[in-house]
């Protein structure tokens, strides 16, 4: 049987990310609808093929340096697999690896690509994709009728449990050595997150702040609250990018994944990359002046008060 769907396993180090299983779960449905097989490709043998039980085939690209990452090498490796197995649909995430691969490979194979996808289904000989555009302000329902097609899915959009089935897919090793030798880039180092000082991942309560804080000067306000609550400060990435808080405080896709009992979010809009890091908190309380901010879709409690009004009140009550 031909390969209908190829899921790119985006594991660079450590465990396979959740999104790979999200893709596998949906990939299974697509493959069945397209009457083909579901394959997953991983870079370097994990010796844990069993976790990909939902797939029919597991491709393992041999010869990649597992202690590093580079876009050109991954592009060469995954490109070699696509070339070889000619899938109809390639599923990646709209995360760093997916962003690196999808645009480049879709261009290389002159194939259509849908990005920021939150839902994808097969309807007849077409794919119907729903994408989140304009920061989630609008959704786009689109169709793709040319194959191969690339679909780049926003992490956290699809159910993850479905893709986690134990089993024993057929394992095939692919040597992409030739392509890798030609690649014009090489990974040199993987840096672990800097965990000096605070550990926001182990806290039961987090006071988190986003770009709504406006400036570094204003951060003091929330820092006082965090101190009164004896909770660490965490932040969305803009706050970190500005250098207002050190990197280990960042929550989200490219920061820490946190699971506190309560996550207090001030001035955080709830971009998918941020939600990815905190949506599994037991209780989320969001303060955002914009009633249509996406954070309210995951929050359990919300207020549209100005954080500059709310935070001092909170500090007052808790501080005694």
């Amino acid at each position, binding site marked *: 049987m031909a390969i209908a769907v190829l899921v790119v396993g985006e594991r660079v180090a450590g465990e396979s990310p959740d999104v790979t299983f999200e893709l596998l779960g949906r990939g299974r449905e697509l493959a069945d609808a397209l009457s083909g097989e579901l394959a997953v490709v991983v870079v370097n043998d994990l010796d844990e093929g069993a976790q990909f039980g939902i797939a029919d085939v597991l491709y393992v690209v041999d010869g990649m340096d597992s202690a590093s990452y580079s876009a050109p090498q991954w592009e060469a490796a995954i490109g070699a697999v696509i070339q070889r197995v000619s899938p109809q649909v390639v599923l990646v995430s709209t995360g760093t690896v997916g962003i690196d691969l999808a*645009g480049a490979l879709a261009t290389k194979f002159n194939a259509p690509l849908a990005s920021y996808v939150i839902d994808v289904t097969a309807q007849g000989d077409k794919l119907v994709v729903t994408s989140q555009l304009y920061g989630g302000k609008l959704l786009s329902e689109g169709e793709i009728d040319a194959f191969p097609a690339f679909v780049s899915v926003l992490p956290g959009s699809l159910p993850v449990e479905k893709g986690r089935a134990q089993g024993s897919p057929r394992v095939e090793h692919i040597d992409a050595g030739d392509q890798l030798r030609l690649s014009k880039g090489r990974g040199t180092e993987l840096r672990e997150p800097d965990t000096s000082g605070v550990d926001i991942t182990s806290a039961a309560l987090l006071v988190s702040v986003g770009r709504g804080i406006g400036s570094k000067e204003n951060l003091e306000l929330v820092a006082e609250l965090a101190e009164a609550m004896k909770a660490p400060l965490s932040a969305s990435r803009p706050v970190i990018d500005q250098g207002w808080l050190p990197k280990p405080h960042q929550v989200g896709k490219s920061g820490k994944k946190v699971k506190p009992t309560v996550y207090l979010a001030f001035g955080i809009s709830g971009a998918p990359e941020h939600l990815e890091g905190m949506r599994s908190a037991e209780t989320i309380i969001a303060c955002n002046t914009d009633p249509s901010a996406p954070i309210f879709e995951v929050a359990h*409690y919300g207020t549209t008060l100005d954080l500059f009004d709310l935070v001092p009140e909170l500090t007052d009550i808790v501080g005694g």
Partner: protein
Amino acid sequence: MHIVVAMRQLADLVEELEVNGDGTDIDRDFVKFVSNEWDEAALEEALTIKDESAASVTVVALDEPDVDQTLYAALAKGADRAVKLTGHDPSAWVRTRERAQRIASFLAHEEFDLVLTGVQAADDLDGQLAGILGSTLDIPHAAVVVGVELTGSSLRVAQELGGGLVGVSELELPAVLGVQAARQAPRYASITRIRQAMQTQKIEEQEVSLEVTTPQVTVRRLYPPEKQGGATMLTGSAKDVATEIVNILRSKGLV
């Protein structure tokens, strides 16, 4: 060292976006266009490199509403040259694949060492520019770049991978990078500076004639998401809401 920064205009998300008559695009007559914030980070990174070495910086953008403002601001901040590409309908949605081809066709006549652009734009339905451009030009690329180190002819980039992991790699030049964050916040160009630039500097126009045939997603409809109303909204004065929140925290033994 010649750095090209690819910038673009994007519908301002401060405004409500309305959908056009046939429901397949935003209503472009009624939105304000501003420069893509990630492109601003790319520009900042380029200018920082210029500050530390003798690089020259060219900014290139497709003709789009208010793009002149963005280009003059870039000149005012220190870019050496600004190029506006024409040859397409400036009031239409230029999909990212076509955008990449147009920029590639400009770059075909340029000698450049590095292309910097923003990691993404909010209407990148067809993928993000850096990878597409890299593949079109057949040069190495990297997205979500948070660190650029340029020493002589070698380029080291740091990329944010998931889980706070940073991947460092070396790329051959020329290369295309999708910048997530520059080393510092974008600098300020005072309006006086921008106006000086308008008077003393010129935006170069180049026509790109191109038959663009990229396979792409056909947009059936664009629509605002339905509110799911997940959160219980707390209302009242700041004090009332604060009290309620503290009660929730207390019920969980947190404060």
